């Protein structure tokens, strides 16, 4: 008798526990979805308005109907129209070229520096760290004039390197700091064991540490790329017609009349440059994360 009661009770309690756990899980996943929706709205609502405006006729730029009205493709055609000297297509290529170059170079030299800072023991480490950080402290607007003078003196005005090198310097401090902080978190014992297995230090770093650091490196790459993608101040003064990036191209969109801000064309351009970037990042992310899981060391 007593045993049966006890076992029933036990079963009941287990059931209850399981149910509670199930409920908790359900509730947790519901909360996740609610949060996800809130995030989507917060991030996308203004972008939605950008897209809606991009598809609006210029005469109805200021229409506030919350859904698309007076729909047209004209703004996209205007954005790519080359007859008035706009070279948006070229500018897009320039931005991609500059962005990729900046990202690759700053990652490579950033990884070197971060490895040294995280793994090596040397004097003046703090001095170097302070120096690198100090580079992010000067008001960007005050850099233009000296750089203009410098690049004029060495005949670099309007060249790609005059746009790439400053961008590298802007993203390097962040790259180095991020990578250093991540590198310090890495389980370096694995590198040791790889070396015991006969890898050289370089091989150990490439084959063991790099895959583990992939999320960090990938994140840093996105940060570097977007930061270069967004850069405007320096490019507006140091680029020319042939080398100007999209940010400068968008700023030189003009209305049919002076004073008229061509919102619809700007929004169309904004849409054009944003969507491919997001797709690009997603594709890469999937690939890298997949590669990471496949080649997991653990």
């Amino acid at each position: 008798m007593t045993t049966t009661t006890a076992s029933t009770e036990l079963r009941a309690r287990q059931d209850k526990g399981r149910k509670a756990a199930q409920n908790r899980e359900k509730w947790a996943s519901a909360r996740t979805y609610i949060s996800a929706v809130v995030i989507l709205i917060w991030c996308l609502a203004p972008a939605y308005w950008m897209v809606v405006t991009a598809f609006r006729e210029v005469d109805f730029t200021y229409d506030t109907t919350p859904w698309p009205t007076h729909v047209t493709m004209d703004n996209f055609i205007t954005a790519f129209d080359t007859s008035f000297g706009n070279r948006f297509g070229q500018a897009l290529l320039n931005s991609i070229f500059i962005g990729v170059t900046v990202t690759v170079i700053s990652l490579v030299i950033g990884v070197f520096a971060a490895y040294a800072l995280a793994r090596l023991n040397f004097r003046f480490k703090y001095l170097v760290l302070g120096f690198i950080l100090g580079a992010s402290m000067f008001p960007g607007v005050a850099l233009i004039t000296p750089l203009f003078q410098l690049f004029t003196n060495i005949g670099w005005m309007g060249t790609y390197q005059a746009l790439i090198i400053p961008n590298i310097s802007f993203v390097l401090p962040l790259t180095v700091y991020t990578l250093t902080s991540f590198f310090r978190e890495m389980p370096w014992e694995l590198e040791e064991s790889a070396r015991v297995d006969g890898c050289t230090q370089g091989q150990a770093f490439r084959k063991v540490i790099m895959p583990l650091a992939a999320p960090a490196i990938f994140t840093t790459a996105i940060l570097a790329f977007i930061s270069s993608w967004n850069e405007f101040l320096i490019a507006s003064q140091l680029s020319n017609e042939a080398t100007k990036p999209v940010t400068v191209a968008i700023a030189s969109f003009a209305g049919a009349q002076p004073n008229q801000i061509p919102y619809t064309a700007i929004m169309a351009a904004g849409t054009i440059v944003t969507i491919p970037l997001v797709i690009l990042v997603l594709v890469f992310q999937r690939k890298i994360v997949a590669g990471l899981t496949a080649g997991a060391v653990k």
Partner: protein
Amino acid sequence: MKTPRFLLPAATAGVLALTLTACGGGGGGGTAGGGSDAEANLEGRGPITYVQGKDNNNVVRPLIEKWNAEHPDEQVTFKEQTDQADQQHDDLVQNFQAKTDDYDVVSVDVVWTAEFAAKGWLQPLKDKMAIDTNGMLEAPVESASYKGTLYAAPKDSDGGILYYRKDLVPEAPKTWDEMMGMCSIAKENNIGCYAGQYKQYEGLTVNASEAINSAGGSVLNDDGKPNLTTPEAEEGLNNLVDAFKNGNIPAEAITYQEEESRRAFQEGKLLFHRNWPYIYSLITTEGSSAVKDKFGMAPLPGKDGPGASSLGGHSAAISVYSKNKATALDFIKFLTNEEQQKFFANQASLAPVLSSLYEDQELVSKLPYLTVLQESIANAVPRPVTPFYPAVTQAIQENSYAALKGEKSAEQALADMQKSIESASAGS
């Protein structure tokens, strides 16, 4: 002992960069001296570059093609800047400071002429380099001159115009008081009465100067010294302040730039509106316009008659660092001759600087407001012609904005403007 360790970078940075500076050729500090540069290369001929802001209506390219066809050895390259005046200004400053000969002929906004001239960056247009200004409107020529010397050739002009709802008021008001008297009509129709541009930006300088000048005051006296503590200036600024207070100017006008105010008028929310001529074609053609054929245009209202508009527009100037000044001079003469002026007006609705064109029948039929505009420009007062323009406009904007928002009295605002401008021109 840890603090110095962190501070050390600055020291090393110093050593590192001192060597760099030595090679870089001491950046910055662009100042005059201009004398020798202004004497050089006067006879130079060859390819040149023309620089101006965004060519909104595609009028510059065809002109340059035309020129290039006629001058195979003196080709002109067009360098187009962005659409924003600030950026155009900074771009020019960078190039002048670096003393490059990349820019030969530059388009300068009327308010930049004095600053650039005083820095020694613009070729004085006198003696061998003189151009003929006979037949040009007086105000644009005045605004292209500094200390009695012409530094740029007026290229296009602009003046403020009063737009009014002719379906509601039969005849445009001649004076400010008359206009304020008509505001009851606006109230009856449940719309705002009057608005110009009152956001804190260059447009506010335009509007505040117009108010002050129209009431008989002036921002600077003939010696270029501030002259704002006068009863006339106070009356002028108070006209705007009072209109904001009693609602004749709607409260949202404090956020208006040209386009926001144009929209308010075009949507039928304003009885009277101050703006530039460019909005004419938009109001008459834009799909969302509610007043297409219900508006008229008139000179700005003043104290006893037409008011004093602020002058807009651009001039063409030659860089002192240009190698081919003879070609440059020919080119600015070409840009400002009657044929090209007419082309600008026809294709881009840019107000000509030659008075004869305002009577040109073909143009008048295309741009019916030309007669009004001519009167506006004839009465126009250039915005303060001073090499300290950036400081002057800052002083006007900040203080008149505070007055319009009721944060300080017009009297106080003008006194502060006066002191700020005095301090700016005292040098530092």
